[in-house]
């Protein structure tokens, strides 16, 4: 049964709860089926996929987290770059990274193919963890420890860009992460990095 021809501007007299035409029913069914596919993909990826934002999430005092990070850095320090320690923990270890306006502490040196428990949190503001050039992004919130199991797949010299506005120096907040390959060969050093602090504006 069809209602009389009318537009969306016309009031609808009588009962408008009428059966839909076949083409509409078909489209609604297809759209519904597609929505179920969209929905199923997320749980499925938790079981079958390798990239999930689940991790282990706990509350933490920002100051305590920062202190734990410094302790960790002192324990496994293997070098230094621009005053920030380079830290190489053993594979499988709990690894700590603190974001604080406007820097990342410390510089992590990981081994490709090994799993680590990476704890990230903030000493002060909201920050954004964005691993360049992998384009892996996580939100960092003060008071929350976001622990993610990560396995770097390839060696290289990576950057951590802050991608959550944290104040006027936000755009200068860049950190470094090094991944060496499993044979232990040295990764190319950070020769292309420049120190340009305060160079313009």
């Amino acid at each position, binding site marked *: 049964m069809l209602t009389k021809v009318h537009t969306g501007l016309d009031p609808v007299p009588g009962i408008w709860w009428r059966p839909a035409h076949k083409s509409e029913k078909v489209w609604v069914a297809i759209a519904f089926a597609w929505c179920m596919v969209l929905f199923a993909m997320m749980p499925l*990826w938790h079981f079958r996929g390798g990239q999930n934002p689940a991790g282990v999430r706990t509350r933490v005092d920002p100051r305590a987290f920062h202190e734990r990070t410094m302790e960790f850095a002192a324990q496994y320090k293997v070098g230094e770059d621009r005053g920030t320690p380079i830290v190489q923990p053993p594979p499988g270890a709990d690894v700590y990274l603190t974001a604080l306006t406007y820097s990342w502490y410390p510089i992590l040196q990981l081994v490709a193919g090994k799993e680590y428990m990476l704890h990230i949190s903030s000493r002060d503001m909201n920050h954004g963890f964005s691993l360049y050039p992998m384009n892996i992004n996580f939100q960092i919130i003060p008071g929350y420890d976001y622990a993610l199991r990560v396995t770097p797949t390839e060696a290289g010299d990576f950057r951590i860009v802050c991608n959550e506005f944290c104040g006027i120096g936000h755009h200068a907040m860049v950190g470094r992460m090094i991944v060496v390959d499993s044979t232990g060969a040295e990764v190319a050093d950070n020769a292309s990095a420049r120190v340009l602090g305060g160079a313009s504006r």
Partner: protein
Amino acid sequence: MSAVATSPVRICDVTGRRIHRSAEQLVKANAVVAVVALLVGIIAALLLVLTRWQAVHLLPPTWYYRLLGVHGMNMLIFFIIFFEMAVLWFAATVLLNARPAAPRLGWVNFGVMLLGSLMVEWAQWSGRADVLYTSYPPLKAHPVFYLGVILFAVGALLVTCQFFATLVIARRERTYEGSLPLVVYGAMTAAIIAVITLVHGAMTYIPTFLWSIGLIAMPDPQVYRMLWWALGHSAQQINVAAMVAIWYMLGALTVGAVVLNEKVSRSAFVLYILFISMASAHHLLVDPGFGPAWKIVNTSYFMYMAVLASMVHGFTVPAGMELGMRLRGYTDGLFGWLRRAPWGDPGFSSLVLSVVVFGFVGGITGVTLGTEQINIIAHNTMRIPGHFHSTVVSGTALAFMGATYYLLPLVFRRRVAFWKLARIQPYLFSGGMLLLVLGMTFAGSFGVPRRHWDISFSQAPFDVPFNPAVDIFLAVMGIGGIIAFLGGLSFILIAVKSVFFGEPLPEITRGVEMHGVPRGLTHPPVHAPDADERNAALHDPARGIAGATPGTLVLVAVFLLAFVVYYFANWKLLSFLWKIG
């Protein structure tokens, strides 16, 4: 502006509707302030885009971040919501032939909203609220900023209540027969979502205000983010509902679009109301405060029920247009109805471009980026503004512009000024926005962050050598932004000239083209007297699944294909990353 009001009611000589002058004045005032906010917003937009275009890099950092906040508040709050207040007054009074509930209170609320906006503008422009649009604590702004937002929200909430009261009046005074027209039903959906949104706004800004004056401790940053996005994302769903209502309205005005089935379209609106505020989760998918179950259930609007709603409207709106055209005799082939549509009518071109860009770009990217795991390769990159500029700007703002080309003659009683410019304005604006959106989206795919002053990292301790392709995408964004700015500025010029210095609307002779009057008014798309019989013939079961609207079925099939390809391509990209879990 208009002649001295002698009678509280006038009869529209185009549509024959009874229009209450007190309501008409409220529509006008809200629309005018909306356009002023739009002007501030697009000036900020131009400066921002010329800063993000790294080769130009115009603004210093302080002003970049400050204007980013100004742009967000003016566009997403002041322009959109003032315009939506105009839509609510219009839908409840003009479309129902009803008198407005408590028009004086309407003016008080308008004043409160205006005061709130001015307080926010003052705080932002004077550098007392450099906290961007989202104002996440621990970033702290001047108390006037938070108070301004609260006043604005209270005013808007009260106008929404007046909208509901006007519906009650119309019902009691029997100004219409039967059920609400679908367009008003859509506006009512927007109003209900507005209430949900504004309640979350109160939960967000009242504690933050108290914190800013030192009365309470800082709100938890994670809880703030959850509540703020129940405001911030739900506000976009007001826009979606209002936009879809305007799609139905423009379809009716420009090509005589019919409602295929009231049950289907109205049920889709109800799905919006039930599920859409869960979208707060879209912003929290890689946050530490929530587990996977919470994220999956919420980000999917409980199994994508609101996406289903949009896909339903994405079918019924073009199908209604197709059927409307076929019933008026444009029956040739699959797409004769589309080819012979009034492409020079800015109301029609705005409608089509709004539907296409919102659906194909905004909808597809939105669902994909809002997938729990895929968000890892999208969160806070330029893919995010790439997405929402295609929904709220190319979708909602363009639909509002299209509606304005009809409001100018119908409510303001003016010819549309700069008519030739008006006829190309939707193409200019939409084309520019499409370039901007593509530039942002592709730059974001390389990891270029949003809300970032300098991706050459000239002040950073370590270099970040982005792929050179990023420079090209940012240039595309910049050029698109300039074109879209010109399109937006054209709209403002047309609206301001028409309203304040425009020629009064002369008497309309049906069937005669008139300069400055959209074709839907000079050639109203009236259905033939035997439309019901023609309709029954088109719906003959012998025509099979394609039914009365075969062209639309082809279009939505193309849409679904694009959706599937984009969605799974992103899963593939995700699978290349490090193992994370």
